C-alpha cells in the first residue's frame, strides 16, 4: 500500500469518513464561534505576528533560539509515513535546537488536512508550514495574501535555483514569486504493463507512438484474452488523470498548457478528440471497473489478467511490495504513448504562510526541504523522485533511477490538472464534476462544454 495523494482504499475511506465528519464539525464550530470574535482575532493575530517577527529577528542574530516549529502533513502510514519520518529525523539532526511538532491529519488524499489548513488560515492561526500541492492549488492563498515571498530567504540557498528544473520552479511560484518548496515528484505520464501479457499478445509497448495507437494495441490484447487497460471508474479522478495524459500525448505540451490556462475553445478539436480517445479506451476496461479501487485495478496487472495500466508512479510501490514480481522481467514501464521527453508533475511542497508562528525555524525547515540531504532521505522511501536534479541516485531502486534520468533529460514538465498544480481548486472541482459525468455516460460533447466552463 502506498500513501499517495490519491489512494482511496477501504481503510483510507473509512478514515476519511470519520475524520472528514469530524473536520467538518470542527470547521462549522470554528465558523460559528468565530462570529463575533473572528475580526478581533485577526487584528490581534496580525499584531502578534509583528511582535513575533521582531523578536525572532533578534533571535536569528544571536542564532540560538527558535520558536517551536509545527509541521502538518497527511503522510501518516505506509510509504509516506516512513518517508516523512526519515525527512523529520534528518531535519532534527541538522537543527537539534529547533523543537519540532509534527501534527499530521490522516485521510482523504489530503482533503482532511486541506480543510484543517483552510480553517487555520481563515482564523489567522497557520501552522509553521504544511504539506500542500504547489502551483495553482495555492492560488486561493496567494489571492488572499497568505503566503510569504521566500525567494531570497529560502530559494537563495543551497543552489536551489540551478538544481530545480523549470516545471517545478514554475509550480513554486503560483503568483509569480516563490512561496513554496517542492519536496518530491510523482510522475503521471506512465504506462505500466505486464511483460508476459504483452508478449503473449504480441504487442510491443515501446512502439506505440500515440494515445490513439494505444487503442489498437488494446484491441490486440483483448483478442488474446486479456483485459486491455486496468482502470477504475468507481471515482472520477483516474479518468481525469488519463484524459490529461491523452491530451498531452496526442497534442503536445503547448496545447496542454494552453487548455489548462483556460483556452479550451481555441483547442476545441483537441479536447473533443482526446475525450473521444478516452471513450474508446473505456471499451477495454475490466467489467468491474465501476466497483474497484485503483489498487484493485493494479492487482489485475500483477495477476496477469490485464495488459496496460495508467496511473501515477506510486503504483510501482505495489509491484515493489509484491514478491516475485520484478521490474523489467514481470512488469515494465514506458512513458505514456506520445509523451516521451515529457515528465508530468504531481508534487508535494511546503509553503511559507504569513503570520508565521516561527518564521526563522520555518525558513530553516524550508531550506532543508530544498536540500539534497532531505530529498535523498525522503524520496526513495516514498517511491517518488527528487525535484533537484543533483541528488545521488544510489539510494533509489532501478525503476526510480530510470525515472530520474527521464526527468533530468525531459524537455518540459507539464503540471498536473487532477492534482491541483495547473488549475485552482474551484476549477479542479468543476473539472472533477465534468469527469464524473463523463464516466457515467461517455458523452463527449457534454464533457467538452463542462471542461470549457470549468477552466474559464
Amino acid at each position: 500500500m502506498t500513501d499517495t495523494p490519491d489512494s482511496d482504499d477501504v481503510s483510507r475511506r473509512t478514515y476519511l469518513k470519520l475524520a472528514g465528519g469530524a473536520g467538518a464539525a470542527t470547521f462549522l464550530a470554528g465558523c460559528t464561534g468565530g462570529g463575533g470574535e473572528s475580526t478581533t482575532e485577526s487584528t490581534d493575530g496580525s499584531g502578534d505576528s509583528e511582535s513575533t517577527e521582531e523578536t525572532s529577528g533578534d533571535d536569528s542574530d544571536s542564532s540560538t533560539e527558535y520558536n517551536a516549529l509545527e509541521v502538518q502533513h497527511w503522510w501518516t502510514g505506509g510509504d509516506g509515513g516512513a518517508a516523512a519520518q526519515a525527512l523529520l529525523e534528518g531535519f532534527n539532526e541538522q537543527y537539534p535546537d529547533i523543537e519540532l511538532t509534527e501534527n499530521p491529519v490522516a485521510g482523504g488524499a489530503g482533503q482532511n488536512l486541506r480543510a484543517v489548513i483552510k480553517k487555520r488560515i481563515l482564523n489567522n492561526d497557520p501552522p509553521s508550514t504544511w504539506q500542500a500541492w504547489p502551483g495553482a492549488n495555492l492560488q486561493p492563498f496567494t489571492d488572499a495574501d497568505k503566503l510569504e515571498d521566500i525567494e531570497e530567504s529560502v530559494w537563495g540557498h543551497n543552489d536551489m535555483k540551478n538544481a530545480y528544473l523549470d516545471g517545478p520552479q514554475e509550480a513554486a511560484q503560483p503568483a509569480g514569486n516563490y512561496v513554496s518548496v517542492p519536496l518530491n515528484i510523482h510522475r503521471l505520464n506512465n504506462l505500466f504493463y505486464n511483460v508476459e501479457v504483452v508478449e503473449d499478445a504480441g504487442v510491443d509497448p515501446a512502439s506505440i507512438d500515440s494515445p490513439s495507437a494505444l487503442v489498437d494495441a488494446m484491441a490486440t490484447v483483448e483478442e488474446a484474452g486479456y483485459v486491455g487497460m486496468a482502470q477504475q471508474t468507481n471515482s472520477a479522478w483516474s479518468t481525469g488523470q488519463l484524459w490529461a495524459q491523452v491530451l498531452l500525448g496526442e497534442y503536445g505540451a503547448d496545447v496542454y498548457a494552453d487548455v489548462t490556462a483556460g483556452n479550451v475553445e481555441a483547442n476545441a478539436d483537441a479536447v473533443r478528440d482526446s475525450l473521444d480517445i478516452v471513450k474508446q479506451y473505456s471499451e477495454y476496461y475490466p467489467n468491474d471497473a465501476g466497483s474497484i479501487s485503483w489498487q484493485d485495478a493494479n492487482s489485475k496487472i500483477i495477476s496477469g489478467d490485464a495488459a496496460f495500466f495508467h496511473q501515477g508512479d506510486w503504483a510501482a510501490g505495489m509491484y515493489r511490495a509484491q514478491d516475485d514480481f520484478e521490474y523489467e522481467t514481470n512488469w515494465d514501464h514506458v512513458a505514456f504513448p506520445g509523451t516521451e521527453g515529457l515528465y508530468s508533475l504531481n508534487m508535494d511542497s511546503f509553503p511559507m504562510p504569513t503570520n508565521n508562528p516561527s518564521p526563522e525555524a520555518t525558513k530553516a525547515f524550508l531550506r532543508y526541504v530544498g536540500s539534497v540531504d532531505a530529498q535523498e532521505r525522503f524520496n526513495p522511501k516514498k517511491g517518488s523522485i527528487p525535484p533537484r536534479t543533483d541528488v545521488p541516485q544510489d539510494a533509489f531502486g532501478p525503476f526510480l533511477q530510470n525515472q530520474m534520468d527521464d526527468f533530468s533529460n525531459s524537455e518540459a514538465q507539464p503540471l498536473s490538472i487532477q492534482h491541483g498544480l495547473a488549475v485552482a481548486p474551484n476549477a479542479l472541482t468543476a473539472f472533477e464534476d465534468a469527469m464524473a459525468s463523463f464516466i457515467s455516460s461517455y458523452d463527449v460533447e457534454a464533457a467538452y462544454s463542462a471542461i470549457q466552463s470549468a477552466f474559464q
Partner: protein
Amino acid sequence: MSPHILKRLLDRLRDDGQPVRTDGGTAAAGSETAGSGFDLGSTLSSLRESDAVRSAPFWLPPFLLMGFFVYGAISWNIVISFTDFGGLQLPTYDPSTFDLEMYRRAFSDGQFWIATRNTFVLLISFTGLSLAGGLGLAILVDRGIRFENWFRTIYLLPFSLSFVVTAVFWRWMYNFDSGLINAFLRSIGLDFVASKWLTGSIDTGALGAIPLVPDTFYFKLFAVIFALLWQFSGYAMVVYLAGLRAIPNDQYEAARVDGASILRMYRRVILPQLRASTVSAAVVLMVFALKAFDFLYVLFGSNPGPTADILSTMMYRQAFSANQWAYGSAIAVILFLVALTVVAPYLYGEYRRGEL
C-alpha cells in the same frame, strides 16, 4: 417550540408567584412585603422559588449547548449564505451587502437541479420501499412463526451497522465479476440479468416517450437505494411490529369470526391502526435518506457523478473542495428547508393531536 415553553414558564411563574412559602428564610423576608403587590423583593424571591429557576441546573446546560451548537450553527450558516464568502478571505458580514446571489446561482445551476432531483428520488423511493418492506416483514414475523426472535434479530442487524461498513461491502456485492449478486444470478441461469450495477444503464426504448421517464435509465442511484433499503427495512419492521403488538388480539379474532380473509383483515382492520407507526417510521427514514451522504461518500468519494449526486454531496464539494463557502452554505440552507418540510407536518400533526 420555544414560544410554547416560554408560555408555560410564564404560567408557572404566575402560579408560583402568589403563594408564599414558609419553609425558607428568604421567603419569609419576602412575605412581609408581599401585600404591597408590586415589589421587587417579592418578585425576585418568587422567581428564585419558581420551578423553572430551581430546575435550571438541569435544563439550562443542554438548552445552551443545543442553542449554541445546533441552532447557532444553523443561523450562522444562513448568514454565510447571504455573503460572497469564498476562498481564504473572511467576508465582512456587512448586512448592506447581503443578497440572495448564491440562491440565484443555485437555481440557475444545472448540477443543482440534478442533485435536487436525485435527492427527491432517493427520499421518496427509499422511504416508500422501506416502509413497504418493513410492513411485509413485520406481518410475517407477527404470524406466530417459529424462531421469531431469531428472524427479528437477523432483520434488524443491518440497521446496527455503520454506513461505512455497508457501503464497502455493497461495493463488493455489486462487483460485476466477483460480486455476490451477479454470482447468484448466474448460478440460477439468469446470466442476462447480471449487470454492471454501479455504472450500467438500460435503454428505456419506447417508454422514454412517457413524460418523466428518462431515455436512459442508470442503475447507480437505485443500487444505492437498494442497499439502503436492505439496511433500513429492519428498522421499519421493528416500528411496525410494535404497532401490531399494540392491537388487541380480540380484533383479529373478531375479524376471523366475521369471516374476513387474511388479506381483508389486514387491509380493513389492522393497517388503518398503524398510522402512527407509519408516520414516525417515515420521518426517521426520510431524515436518514437526507443523510445518505456518508454512504455515497464512502462508495464513490465526494463526487458520485450526475446519476447519484445528491444535495449533501454537492454541498460538501462546493464548500470543502472548491472553497465556495457561501455557495455551499446556500445549498445547505436549501437542504435544511427540505428536511424541515419533511419534519414539520409531522410535528404539526402531533401538536394538534396534543401529543407534543
